[in-house]
């Protein structure tokens, strides 16, 4: 595509709309993610944030609008192909492969970076053997990088604690060497200390690995602390965007959240407790 430059934004969504029957979950949202940056997507429950993620990653086809990644049109492309291009994600409700070990989960994350085919695997050619070893080592490295104790690497994912499951999910997403990481409420259920750790971790990803991160988050402390740019969705529409301060003081944003104030306070309390 024409905009294929290495300096343009990493991801551009223009006029993205998604309807479910009569419901418009995402309404004409345009959005850009710069390279090497952390940006956030916030909004009350049901605003359409996760749906937007699902469009970016190819799980949903947008009703209208286009998405391009790294200068390439990925609108409605297959999820595995989009993943191969460099968009990796985590899920709001953790979706690890429960009966696989932490290590195996991260190995699956490297699927697109592997070459072994049917016959190569059956014959276990030297090339395949080498690849397998390399993938295993890299998985272990990543797990350590996200802070999972080595003793837990061979635990089944289903037996890990909630915080560790989140870690493994991030490691699994990182395993494909993505350029863009989408995190859907990674701090849900974490205590403030853990949230703080995660914030620093995201900054490391950006600075050490050169990643861009799109973050969906309800915890305003995290959002305000880490993101260079914030976009606010409400009822599927983009109602505000800008840096953290601008957004926080935008009357429209305040209003969107006000109706939910009570619920919101309870939520944060839940999260803390």
């Amino acid at each position: 595509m024409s905009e294929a430059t290495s300096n343009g934004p990493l991801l551009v969504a223009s006029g993205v709309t998604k309807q479910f029957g009569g419901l418009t979950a995402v309404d004409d949202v345009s959005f850009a993610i710069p390279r090497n940056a952390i940006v956030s997507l916030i909004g009350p429950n049901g605003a359409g944030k996760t749906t937007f993620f699902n469009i970016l990653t190819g799980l949903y086809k947008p009703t209208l609008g286009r998405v391009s990644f790294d200068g390439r049109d990925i609108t409605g492309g297959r999820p595995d192909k989009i993943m191969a291009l460099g968009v990796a994600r985590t899920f709001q409700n953790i979706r690890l492969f429960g009966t696989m070990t932490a290590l195996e989960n991260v190995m699956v994350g490297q699927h697109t970076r592997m070459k072994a085919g049917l016959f190569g695997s059956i014959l276990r050619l030297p090339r395949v053997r080498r690849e397998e070893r390399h993938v295993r080592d890299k998985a272990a490295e990543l797990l350590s990088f996200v802070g999972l104790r080595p003793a837990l690497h061979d635990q089944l994912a289903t037996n890990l604690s909630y915080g560790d499951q989140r870690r493994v999910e991030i490691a699994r997403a990182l395993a494909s060497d993505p350029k863009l990481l989408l995190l859907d409420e990674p701090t849900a259920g974490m205590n403030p200390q853990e949230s703080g750790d995660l914030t620093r971790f995201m900054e490391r990803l950006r600075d050490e690995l050169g990643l861009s991160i799109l973050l969906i988050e309800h915890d305003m402390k995290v959002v305000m602390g880490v993101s260079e740019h914030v976009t606010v969705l409400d009822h599927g529409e983009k109602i505000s965007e800008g840096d953290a301060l601008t957004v926080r003081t935008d009357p429209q944003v305040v209003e969107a959240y006000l109706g939910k104030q009570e619920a919101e306070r309870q939520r944060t309390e839940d999260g803390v407790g």
Partner: protein
Amino acid sequence: MTGDAAAPRRAPAPVRGPRTRPRAPKLPRRARVGLAAAALLGGAILPLFLASGGGLIEDATLALAYVVMALGLNIIVGFAGLLDLGYVAFFAIGAYTMGYFGSLFHINVNGGEGIHVLVSGVAAELPGIHLNFLLIVVLAIIATTIAGMLIGLPTLRLRGDYIAIVTLAFGEIVGRIAINGDEITGFGTKLTNGRQGITPVDKIDLPFLDPFTALNLRPWYWVAFVMVLLVLFVNFRLRDSRLGRAWIALREDEVAAVSMGVPAVKTKLLAYGTGAAFGGISGAFLGSYLNTVNADQFQFSFSIFILAMVILGGLGSIWGVVVGAIALSFINNYLIPDVLNNVPARIGLDFDLTQLSFGIFGFLLVIMMVLRPEGLIPERRRQLELQEGIEDLAVDGDDVQPAVRP
């Protein structure tokens, strides 16, 4: 699966409590290797202890052919989690490949002279097409792999139980075509011989060996044994490979798997294709071994027979499936007809026990599902999934709906 994004936010996944049932103790690796080696060695020398033409070796050979099919089906159902109720289709296609290229079926071909490729003995003199057995096996593999993918293709977007029914329907269609294929003609030949079946079928003819005979069954047994070794090897290698992991991932949570870069279509088709190929190999062997391609064999009950082996042994559990297949084929071909059959008469009842065999398999399926769904020799993951419903939990999230709902 009522994933509704508007529903209240789900609480974080609870950390699981202690297991409801203790897991089967796992033997140390060395003991397992020793046990496997002993079993294989025993299997290899077994014919030396059996009469070369007797009923036991006949049943044992049949059992091995069933092991091959069960391990093939295990790739589809056990590894990839695609419930296939039409596996008989691959048996049929393999057997017909044997019939087409190793019998008098195309009797007028080449002006009645026949076509012969690398065959010796009687077959070299007969009209019809006669290819070397190994060539036929290659053809059977090609035919069944293609059929497996064609049957698999339309099921890819469906959910588990719909896949089961579509594969069942395909199996039935293939069976119907086998039975009524004598009405379909083209290129100067019928599609099948209908209920008459294709018989006789060429005996296996391997390079450097004399053609096999019906009198000495040992060579047949060893050929079947080599097929078992082959399918075992493929099962083990695939299970612990990139593809094997991708199958588990898709089986557990398709949405997460595709989001992690696993191509759903290709990965599932590879399962169908490889699983089907073994049905074809075994089918070709059985065509020759049974000396007939009998259209009445290709029924739904056969698919269930093979499925019951996989389930009895343990879905996804390679040694379990071997044990399940051997057990069921001996129950079916030896225990019921030869040993237990006169029991009802002895206790004064008037029926033929062989009539009960499918009721017995049905009973087995129900009992296994209710009491021990993970099978006799469970595979670790499947045990977790079946006992605790992890599979369902994973799909319950409200991020995305699982694959198309009807």
